[in-house]
């Protein structure tokens, strides 16, 4: 990585020191504290957000921290800042700081009882925050759902492009297969489908995608080189063209009317399962074999690693999750068409993976969340958005070619640990 020496201006340095001193006051806040703070904040917004927004001269609560109207109604920017400060920043900071001691004790106690319990409680809190936050405005709900799905897609692609170090372009094809596969199950196969069918439909979508992946993997992994990049690209084109010619799924017009089963809890749970399973995989020796194959295949082979099986498994596994995400996507949007799984989608998913960081679960979460939220927040820029986001990515590639949070392990237990206070007491 090129170490970039940035000459800091005096002002910039002062700001950084100030920022550090502010931030260091929160050194002792564990994740639990932040979550409780966020819960209080969204609860506050839920209760008084709307009248408060109107008091500040806005029609309703700003959907995404005020970003959506800063260009159209710039005179509301101060109001938006006040709103964000009063509704989010102050309550979160205050609650996090006040409860820090209790939160630390609780976090420690929970971990002592069982890691699972601690994880579960954190997840319930996280879900509650999302639930209340999205309940205020329907627009937020769709943004959060799409972001969660993007996490699954990004993470699954990172397995191949990051952990395995290949360059796969077939993800739009897999997402498409999953979306169509799941939709066929929920729309076409049954007369009177019930929501119980949904998990099955998602799994079917995943399996269909994995079967598609087999078609790519068998020829691709026979030889070394950037062979997969080409075959997978052709695969994406083929799937798109194939779907356009399948009249029973609507051909180029697409397929609509998916039942409304992809509710927030469902999407949340699937995303959590995906993160958990993928993180388990990449942290196991079997999963780390991907890194060995990437960094030196001959050495991996000599150290008893079955390289071909490793690559095949990971590729199918990645495709499976892309398919599951596709199934979710189809049911969130209640409409899919072949054209939406083309090169545009490819650029989008690649951008999230490489922006967030290769070989990193956290990186993929960061990449998916930041690019998705950014995409929504930059909506007011209209078409200029497609200049700003690509430019950001180019700069990222120049200054951090492997992405924002690359090559980091995602250690859940470390994340949930209580934080030591600055005074040094337990």
């Amino acid at each position, binding site marked *: 990585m090129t170490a970039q020496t940035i000459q800091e201006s005096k002002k910039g340095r002062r700001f950084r020191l100030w920022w550090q001193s502010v931030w260091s006051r929160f050194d002792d806040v564990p994740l639990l504290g932040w979550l409780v703070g966020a819960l209080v904040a969204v609860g506050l917004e839920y209760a008084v957000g709307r009248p408060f927004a109107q008091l500040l001269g806005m029609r309703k609560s700003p959907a995404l921290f005020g970003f959506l109207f800063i260009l159209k109604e710039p005179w509301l920017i101060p109001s938006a800042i006040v709103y964000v400060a009063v509704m989010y920043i102050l309550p979160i900071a205050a609650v996090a700081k006040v409860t820090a001691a209790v939160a630390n004790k609780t976090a420690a106690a929970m971990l002592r009882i069982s890691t699972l319990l601690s994880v579960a409680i954190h997840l319930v809190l996280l879900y509650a925050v999302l639930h209340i936050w999205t309940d205020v405005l329907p627009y937020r709900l769709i943004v959060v759902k799409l972001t969660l799905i993007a996490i699954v897609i990004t993470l699954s692609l990172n397995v191949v492009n990051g952990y395995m170090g290949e360059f796969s372009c077939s993800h739009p094809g897999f997402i498409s297969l999953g979306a169509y596969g799941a939709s066929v199950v929920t729309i076409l196969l049954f007369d009177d489908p019930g929501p119980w069918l949904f998990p099955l439909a998602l799994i079917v979508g995943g399996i269909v995608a994995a079967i598609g992946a087999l078609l790519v993997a068998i020829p691709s992994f026979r030889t070394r080189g950037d062979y997969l990049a080409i075959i997978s690209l052709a695969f994406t084109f083929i799937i798109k063209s194939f779907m356009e010619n399948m009249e029973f799924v609507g051909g180029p017009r697409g397929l609509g009317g998916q039942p409304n089963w992809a509710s927030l809890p469902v999407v949340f749970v699937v995303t959590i399962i995906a993160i958990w399973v993928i993180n388990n995989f990449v942290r196991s020796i079997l999963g780390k074999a991907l890194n060995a194959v990437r*960094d030196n295949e001959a050495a991996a082979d000599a150290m*008893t690693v*079955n390289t071909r099986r490793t690559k095949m498994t990971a590729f199918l596994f990645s495709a499976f999750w892309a398919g599951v995400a596709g199934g979710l996507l189809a049911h969130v949007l209640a409409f899919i068409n072949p054209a939406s799984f083309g090169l545009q989608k490819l650029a989008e998913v690649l951008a999230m993976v490489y922006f967030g960081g290769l070989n990193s679960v956290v990186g993929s979460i960061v990449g998916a969340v930041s690019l998705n939220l950014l995409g929504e927040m930059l909506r007011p820029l209209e078409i200029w958005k497609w200049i700003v986001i690509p430019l950001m990515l180019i700069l990222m590639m120049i200054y951090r070619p492997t992405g924002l949070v690359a090559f980091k392990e995602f250690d859940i237990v470390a994340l949930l640990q209580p934080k030591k206070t600055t005074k040094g007491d337990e």
Partner: protein
Amino acid sequence: MPLLEVKHMTHFFGGLRAVHDFNLSIEKGEIRGLIGPNGAGKTTIFNLITGVYTPTEGEILFQGQPIVGLQPHEIASRGLSRTFQNLRLWRHMSVVEHIKMARYSKLTYGLVGAFFDTPERRRQEEESDEIAHRLMKELGISHLADQIVTNLPYGAQRRVEMARALATEPDLLFLDEPTAGMNPEELVEMMDIFRQVHEEFGMAIFLIEHRLRVVMELCERIQTLVFGEVIAEGTPDEIQNNPKVIEAYLGEEDIH
């Protein structure tokens, strides 16, 4: 029954004969040496036996079983491990991860374990971790456990490679110029490690070396390879006094 038996192995690269009628028999616990000038085909012989290439002709028996045509990882899992001349480490992985990786074929938890973090997986991963730490301690690299290998000095990288090869629990260890690029102190340490490994685990070693001092001191029998053919075989003393060897090898190479 010898541990490894190579009979009449010949190999062509295109029209070029790289190895001609190579024979070898290594007993359990033996230390063997293979010397020869650059380009003589020493590494090719390693690659042929370990399955990187399939020999054009000939037979290879490891522990009585034919291994020609098997994949390198299959041969390695049967107990034939190796190091590489030009250190093939995994540049993004830490030392302890390197050694644990070599436990791959010993793991039985399968994909279910990999995906769902089962108790069985935890048990096996912990066991691999213990083995890795034991090996690091023996090779004196415990303090480097969590370092990424590319940050390590050359000597330490050599040790990591050695530890990694040992973690596959080999009966026979192929070392491809394991002291290349080492300074005299490191060389002495490394030779101690070879002896220690040999005595402690009782494993057989097949060694390619450039430095005659290492081979002469360690090996019981030595073969000399020139242009893919064995021109002499014998004890260190015999080799040192063999006129053919002196002509082909000692005459032109730097003796350390």
